[in-house]
């Protein structure tokens, strides 16, 4: 018996001597080999024929194993809850990856959508252009049939005509976007295309009190470009810049020749890189002093139908079309805020053709600004 348990003698045995029963009292005893074991004690008094307690029957059961089992059970129940926790975590992870899979799927769906925009556009064009044509004919007919149209009638007819025009231009934008896939390139002078584009937006410039500044580098190499499509790019960028300056400002259109010296995301040494180090390129920048680009809008600027303009003003196809067209020319386009803030800058980089009069790619190193 371990010394610290000796007190049990005075606690248990007097009771037993008086005839009491001890039932499964758990305590600790020392085995013969000196090992402490947990035991369950049951003591029953034994009486003589006069009823006096003379001795006792002591049943001592080694419950160490049972206790261990119990402990193990407790532990394993803990382990179980551990496992449960792990399961729960796994479940969360699973759910997350499911979400991710779902968003990847969404992207795929979007890509598929983009691909089918062409077909969609054709369908939409047919279904919408017919009704538009009917409206336009009806308006024309009314305009000729009403003998002396008062001011309101004229306004109504004009509004209807303009609405048809607007809807038609949305459809045209869609078609441009979906049919921008074929190019008919020819040798072009980029400065000339930029100037023509400026001519095309001349009205919007004066209407919005925007002052246009040309900073064109002369003597640029020519480039193989689809004139109409590249002009469409420049016009889109200029219109965006003008739209960003509703109360007036300055539109700066800059062209320059550049030689690629730094490795950028699309500049490299491999043949497959879009632009290679040392290559001479033509850079066109369209800069404004407008509101600048909202950071939250940035990742979606080139998405079809992304627009921050009110309905009827923007279709959100401008930059999507620009990107498609520039990419078809093997060029790049990016748009961001000017370093010092106070407006946005769109940058288009296009390949130049090596000029004939002489490997000029080697001579006048770097751009010569004027």
């Amino acid at each position, binding site marked *: 018996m371990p010394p610290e348990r000796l007190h049990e003698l005075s606690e248990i045995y007097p009771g037993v001597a008086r005839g009491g029963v001890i039932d499964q009292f758990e305590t600790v005893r020392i085995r013969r080999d000196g090992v402490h074991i947990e035991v369950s004690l049951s003591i029953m008094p034994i009486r003589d024929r006069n009823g006096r307690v003379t001795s006792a029957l002591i049943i001592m059961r080694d419950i160490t194993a049972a206790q261990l089992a119990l402990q193990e059970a407790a532990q394993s129940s803990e382990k179980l809850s551990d496992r449960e926790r792990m399961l729960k975590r796994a479940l969360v992870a699973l759910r997350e990856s499911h979400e991710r899979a779902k968003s990847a799927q969404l992207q795929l769906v979007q890509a598929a959508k983009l691909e089918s925009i062409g077909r969609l556009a054709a369908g939409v064009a047919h279904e919408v*252009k017919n*009704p538009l044509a009917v409206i336009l004919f009806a308006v024309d007919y009314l305009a*000729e049939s009403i003998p002396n149209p008062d001011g309101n009638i004229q306004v109504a007819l004009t509004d209807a005509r303009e609405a048809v025009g607007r809807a038609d231009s949305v459809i045209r934008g869609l078609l441009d976007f979906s049919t921008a896939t074929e190019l008919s390139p020819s040798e072009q002078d980029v400065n000339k295309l930029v100037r023509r584009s400026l001519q095309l937006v001349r009205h919007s410039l004066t209407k919005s009190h925007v002052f246009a500044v040309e900073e064109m580098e002369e003597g640029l190499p020519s480039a193989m470009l689809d004139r109409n499509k590249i002009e469409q790019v420049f016009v889109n960028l200029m219109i965006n810049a003008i739209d960003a300056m509703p109360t007036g400002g300055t539109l700066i259109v800059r062209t320059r020749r550049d030689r690629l010296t730094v490795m950028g995301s699309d500049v490299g040494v491999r043949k497959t890189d879009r632009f290679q180090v040392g290559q001479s390129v033509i850079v066109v920048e369209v800069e404004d002093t407008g509101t600048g680009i909202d950071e939250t809008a940035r990742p979606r600027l080139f998405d079809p139908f992304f627009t921050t303009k009110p309905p009827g003003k923007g279709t959100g196809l401008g930059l999507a079309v620009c990107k498609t067209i520039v990419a078809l020319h093997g060029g790049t386009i990016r748009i961001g805020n000017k370093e010092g803030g106070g407006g946005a800058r769109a940058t288009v980089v296009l390949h130049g053709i090596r000029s004939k009069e002489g490997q000029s790619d080697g001579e006048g190193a770097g751009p010569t600004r004027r």
Partner: protein
Amino acid sequence: MEKVRVLLVDDEPSFTRMLKLNLEKRGFTVMVENNGAYAYTVAQDFMPDFIFLDVIMPDVDGGEVAAKLRRDPNFKDTPIVFLTAGVSREATKAKGNIIGGQQYLAKPVTVDEVVATIEKVMKKKTKATPASPRG
């Protein structure tokens, strides 16, 4: 001078109805057919000086109608202008050229443009073939 007879073939009744009203107001004689499959029969009956053909129609498309008309000596030289609400102007043009259509108009189009087109094509035709069956 006799009124110019214009045949409109388009599957959209409201479109042909509106165009007919407008052209009649401008002094043309107009016949409408909304089913491409009957266009040739109607043309034989009406003997138009000028034909507008919708490119995309459910049963028979404008190209087929034009091809059939061109095989008939009566319509060998009748001006045909395609009307298209479709995507590819280039495709329309190519098709029109192959089957002999002189021009196409993209919907929506104003009545002025339609009339200008008729007048331009008719003038060219009169110059080219003065001995036209119809004046």
